């Protein structure tokens, strides 16, 4: 009941947002700069074939491969840093620096390494997404209760057991925060990656349309990207709720 009311008012809010956008777009009247939502939806319908069949799968595979690598890499680095303080001191500056290099400065290097394969796009995705996972997981691993750790030590638990039975459960809520940021970034990461050289993909399509001054066609694939982002986010939230169901609900 209350929940349904909540959804309703949420829906109204989003509707209001779209109406304001539509009105603003019509007022500004520069379709190529700010297309109205109706124009975008029309274009989306018109282009549904190529977008869904050709470009979506390309982008989606980049996202998924990139995310899997990011999670492994981000968690790996976080674990390494939490195990060795000197690794933390050495790696943190390097990974922060890695975040400072604009992708287009790296683009030729990636192409040099990976050519125009999917891997150059995956690398961009990973570069953009592993950082929030690393930071959150690392902070999460340090958030484990000291009392519980001591208790497990007295039970003869080794590093490995403390890690899996105490630190991992304590880090999970933090990890999920990072993952939510990361899945969101992964979508835009894959889209940016596609500019480095691609022949298909939603980001590539959007960029090509920019050169054509076709505002609605620029935003149509972005709407799809948003949907992917929202879906990934919802999936992570769902997994989060499932795996943290021991948490007392308020």
């Amino acid at each position, binding site marked *: 009941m209350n929940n349904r009311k909540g959804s309703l008012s949420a829906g109204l809010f989003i509707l209001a947002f779209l109406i304001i956008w539509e009105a603003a777009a019509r007022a500004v009247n520069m379709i190529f700069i700010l297309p109205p939502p109706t124009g975008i939806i029309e274009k989306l319908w018109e282009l549904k074939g190529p977008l869904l069949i050709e470009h979506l799968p390309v982008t989606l595979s980049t996202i998924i491969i990139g995310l899997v690598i990011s999670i492994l890499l981000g968690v790996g680095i976080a674990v390494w840093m939490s195990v060795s303080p000197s690794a933390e001191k050495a790696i943190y500056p390097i990974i922060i620096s890695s975040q400072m290099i604009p992708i287009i400065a790296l683009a030729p290097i990636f192409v*040099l390494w990976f050519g125009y394969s999917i891997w150059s796009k995956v690398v961009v995705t990973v570069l953009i997404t592993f950082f929030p996972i690393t930071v959150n997981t690392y902070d999460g691993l340090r958030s484990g209760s000291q009392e519980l750790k001591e208790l497990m030590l007295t039970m003869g638990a080794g590093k490995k057991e403390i890690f899996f039975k105490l630190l991992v459960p304590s880090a999970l809520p933090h990890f999920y925060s990072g993952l939510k940021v990361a899945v969101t970034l992964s979508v835009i990461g894959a889209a940016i990656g596609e500019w480095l*050289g691609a022949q298909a993909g939603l980001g590539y399509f959007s960029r090509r349309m920019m050169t054509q001054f076709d505002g609605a066609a620029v935003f149509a694939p972005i709407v799809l990207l948003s949907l992917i982002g929202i879906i990934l986010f919802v999936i992570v939230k769902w997994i989060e709720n499932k795996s943290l169901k021991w948490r007392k609900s308020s």
Partner: protein
Amino acid sequence: NTNSASEKAQTAEGKEKKKEKVTIMLDWYPNAVHSFLYVAEEKGYFDAEGIDVDIQFPANPTDPIQLAAAGKVTLGISYQPDVIMARTDQGVKVKSVGAIVRSPLNRVMFLKDSPIQRPKDLEGKTVGFTGIPLNEAIIETMVAKDKGNPKKVNMIDVGFELNSAVVTKKADAVVGAYINHEVPLLKHEGHETRNFDPTKYGVPNFYELVAVTSDETWEKQQDTIKAFWRAAEKGFDFTEQHPDEALSILLSKQDEANFPLIEEVEKQSLDILLPKMKSEKGFGSQTKESWIETAEWMKASGLIKKEPKLEEVFVNIAD
């Protein structure tokens, strides 16, 4: 596409004599200026020369030179001043093998009802450019030539967007707009513009687009590149004689790839381009004078710091 091309190459390998693979990176996404390449591909001119072409698009305007220099692509389409700059100041070992567009497409563009009538009027105005110093030099030369003070022009890097800079009136004029792209595109969108031709105000008549390769690639694959060029020239000849058919080949290729071009715009574009691409001495021929003139202008306007070295900067493939 890359895959299917190489597959094709492999199956062809079995049947006939070995095909040479040529990767060419365009200066930008496909448009009218590239018609000759698509025609040569479609009409089988490349096949006839035993060449398998792979056409790629850049992420950055600088990619064609960088990746050609790195040997990642056989040829890259770039700009004459960029080649000089890369070769002279940074020692990037690239050379031009052929001029594709023989005079600047680059224009100083502003809205039709703008008060700007001559380059001197740019004084006190904001001029947007895409962050390439060449464009700053163009404005400087033009304004100085028109007896204005270039220092009074407010140059601003507007990044990705020349068109919106003009249309939103956040810049009074932009430099770097192409007479065959931005101008007709804006017109198509309902924005009339006027423009200045830099060559009329002291900027040398440089080659807007040239095909570049690295010294090393040239060394190793001279024959292949020459073969490629013969096919390209045939493609250009066909384009010149049958512009409408050439254009429709380009348009249909792009349609197939789901990136429809605006026919009206590309048609205007090709009309502008054809005379600028044609050369008495054969498609792609280059003159030493053009390179020297451009280099000297660049030196004078501070675009290059070192003494230009032009011995190896171009080879005349058309000879």
